């Protein structure tokens, strides 16, 4: 073990200001041709945030439609397109892009590298993802294409067979869905390879695997899981395209194919995909909670093991989405037990976050507010997940709004809350300016209230029997008042997101100057300037513990003595 921590030989970019002055065309060219991981990371996040607004607008339209019985705010066809595009957008164009944006921006900085391992592949991956999203949304204009009728995809985000067969989905809307996701999938795989290669081969001196920030560890695990899970999805989509274009029968039951095979292919991607999205949320929590609790993370090795354990177990749980198709008792029992097994490593994480906060000097700045809510809400999401893992319970509530409420508790209550927290935390690093704390508090509390008004109530709507994806309902079902409450909550969340957008735009130009280390944090990115120069660090850092900046700030009590 080293007897002292690293010296960072100065990291302020003092390049004369006039060097950075460009016309807007030069700026545009600079961003389009960039291979810098930071610019690409920012583009990923902005791209994802743009589609968050788009997908959010679709959700609000859906909620207006469902706010009262027998409503016709949207036509049935547009309603189907909106819920399909909302789900597809939020998973593939918002969740995936923002988490890979964070990984792109932060992994090299956190390990003391100057860029990703494959900078050009990094740019290519981003643009594949971006063009895939544009292609998907072009379907609103070009969905009818040359051959038939139709518009944007309307088969649900899981696109079950045989609905996707040409006989039931004429036109090209479903083709746009499959092809666009193949394109984004190429980009996703490229980024995953890049993250793994970067973390494994470009760490600075002294940064052993067990000294890597947990954010980097979880980015590696997420990327590994991505590589495994995108593959069956892409394979299934290619089979679907073959069915639709070349007369294949993979999913055509009447011709010897199997619709259930599609479900297996989709969910062996789809369930680990939840962990692909939520592990980065864990990664953000692992960085923010210790800094704002003023304590080192509790149980670092257990957190690493739990992350790897979650990834491993998550690959064996997919058919809990399929309890109602009539599997054998052995299959049901296996997937019930394997699903419950996930509760062990996730429970370890929750205990460790609480243990990190326990006895700490907690500062409830906006990032910490979001992450505190994240812990609480992810716990609740996990509990309803355990309920749905019980096959008989699932038989009653499958495809009901209870399931919708459960997975929105994960995707919004855990992932989106963590993403907001991460944006507040690292925005100063990326722009050099702080996001406004007052607006941040408004953002948090409105989003928190809106979230619970919407999704807590949605559980009850589901228990009262409301199925997912229905266009409207009769007044005598007794769902009207609860649906109205759900919709009101959705609009409160919408207002909150608008406040965040305002904060983002205002603070980027007028926000308080942040300095290099506004949160008094401990990982390497806070040793770089804000925003960091293109080369990140003029000289390679050298570290001796998991919290190199703590060691510098507290030379009398460095971490390496205890690790």
């Amino acid at each position, binding site marked *: 073990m080293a007897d002292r921590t690293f010296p960072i*030989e100065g990291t302020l970019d003092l390049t004369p200001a006039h060097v950075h002055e460009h016309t807007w065309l030069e700026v545009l060219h600079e961003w389009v*041709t960039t*291979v810098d991981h930071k610019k690409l990371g920012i583009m990923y996040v902005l791209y994802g945030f743009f589609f968050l607004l788009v997908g959010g607008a679709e959700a609000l339209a859906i909620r207006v439609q469902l706010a009262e019985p027998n409503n016709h705010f949207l036509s049935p066809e547009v309603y189907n397109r909106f819920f399909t595009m909302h789900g597809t957008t939020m998973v593939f164009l918002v969740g995936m892009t923002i988490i890979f944006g964070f990984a792109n921006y932060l992994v090299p900085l956190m390990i003391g590298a100057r860029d990703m391992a494959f900078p*050009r592949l990094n740019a*290519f991956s981003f*643009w594949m993802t971006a063009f895939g999203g544009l292609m998907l949304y072009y379907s609103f204009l070009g969905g009818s294409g040359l051959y038939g009728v139709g518009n944007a995809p309307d088969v649900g985000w899981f696109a079950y067979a045989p609905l996707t067969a040409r006989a039931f989905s004429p036109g090209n809307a479903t083709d746009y869905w499959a*092809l666009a996701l193949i394109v984004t999938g190429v980009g996703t795989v490229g980024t995953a390879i890049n993250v793994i290669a970067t973390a494994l081969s470009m760490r600075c001196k002294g940064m052993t695997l067990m000294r890597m920030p947990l954010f980097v560890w979880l980015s590696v695990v997420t990327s590994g899981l991505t590589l495994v899970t995108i593959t069956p999805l892409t394979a299934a989509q290619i089979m679907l395209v073959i069915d639709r274009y070349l007369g294949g029968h993979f999913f055509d039951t009447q011709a010897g194919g199997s619709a259930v095979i599609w479900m297996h292919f989709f969910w062996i991607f789809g369930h680990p995909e939840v962990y692909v999205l939520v592990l980065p949320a864990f990664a953000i929590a692992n960085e923010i909670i210790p800094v704002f609790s003023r304590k080192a993370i509790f149980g670092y090795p257990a957190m690493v093991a739990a992350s790897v354990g979650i990834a491993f177990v998550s690959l064996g749980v997919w058919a809990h989405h399929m309890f109602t198709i009539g599997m054998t008792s052995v299959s049901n029992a296996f997937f019930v037990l394997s699903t419950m097994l996930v509760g062990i490593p996730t429970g370890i994480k929750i205990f460790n976050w609480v243990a990190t906060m326990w006895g700490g000097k907690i500062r409830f700045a906006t990032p910490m507010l979001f992450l505190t809510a994240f812990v609480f809400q992810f716990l609740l999401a996990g509990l309803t997940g355990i309920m749905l893992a019980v096959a008989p319970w699932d038989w009653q509530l499958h495809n009901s709004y209870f399931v919708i409420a459960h997975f929105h508790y994960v995707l919004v209550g855990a992932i989106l809350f963590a993403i907001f927290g991460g944006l507040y935390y690292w925005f100063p690093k990326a722009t050099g300016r702080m996001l406004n704390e007052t607006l941040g508090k408004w953002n948090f509390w409105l989003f928190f209230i809106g979230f619970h008004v919407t999704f807590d109530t949605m559980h009850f709507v589901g228990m009262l029997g409301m199925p997912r994806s229905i266009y409207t309902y009769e007044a005598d079902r007794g769902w009207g008042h609860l649906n109205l409450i759900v919709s009101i909550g959705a609009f409160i969340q919408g207002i909150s997101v608008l406040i965040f957008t305002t904060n983002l735009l205002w603070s980027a130009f007028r926000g308080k100057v942040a300095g290099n280390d506004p949160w008094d944090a401990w990982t390497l990115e806070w040793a770089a300037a804000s925003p960091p120069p293109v*080369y990140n660090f003029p*000289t390679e850092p050298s570290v001796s513990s998991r919290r190199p900046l703590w060691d510098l700030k507290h030379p009398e009590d460095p971490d390496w003595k205890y690790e």
Partner: protein
Amino acid sequence: MSEEKKSGSHVETIHLPAPTAWPIVMAFGLMLVFAGLVTNIGISVLGAILALFGAVGWFRQVLPHEAHEDVPVVVERVVIETARRQVERIVVDEHHREHFPLETYPILSGIKGGIAGGIAMIPPALLYGYLSHHSIWWPVNLLGGAGLANWHHPSTADIAHFYWGGLAVACAIQAVVSLLVGLLYGAMLPLLPRHPIILGGIIAPVLWTGMIHATLNLINPVLDSNIAWGWFLVSQVTFGLVAGWVVSRQEKIQTAQSMPFILRMGIEGSGLTQEQDDEDHKA
């Protein structure tokens, strides 16, 4: 990415990968290849050409030598410091392990408590049936109705009538559930730090009754409509008080937490406890 032209302890320029448009050209081309499948084959051909150009351009960026740009560096030493100089250690109470129960009730006490509580709750249930419906079999049939044949949409008179099957099923359910809840009490009471009778005998039955009241309508609406919740609560509290009282009167036994660590780890060895030493000495 390498460093050049050292000046003192710092470098003056750093090699970084040169910006390039070829990745975006190739990505756009590949997207068009797929987009052509749903628009026009010409789009796919154009996309393939763009992708090919993009790939060639990309290769020329890295072969035979990687294109790079020299980024000038001007640096000064950054002072990394904190205003929070003081480090406090969290003081851990040396008795903190006592939060784990060092003593607990034996399993047999839970069984006894369950039996006693199960018997004690019968009188209020029967009293309710007699006062409300002039039949002591009303609560019996409510509990054991599932064991009766043709027990669909029973009338009030049906529920008040005597059935051997209903009595047998009700007795079985009462016995099994009472034993299980008694065991739960035996395990739970040592964890309740103060006032175990109040917590286990009153608060827990009230919460339990509230949970059943909130959910029974979803699980079994017919049963829900026939239950008098006030009387139900009385019988639950009776069970709780009696079972808790019986369990708490039993003699406690030591848990594994009171043993030395090496014994808890399952490692055998003589002379590890005073008691064992004494026993060995007597032998």
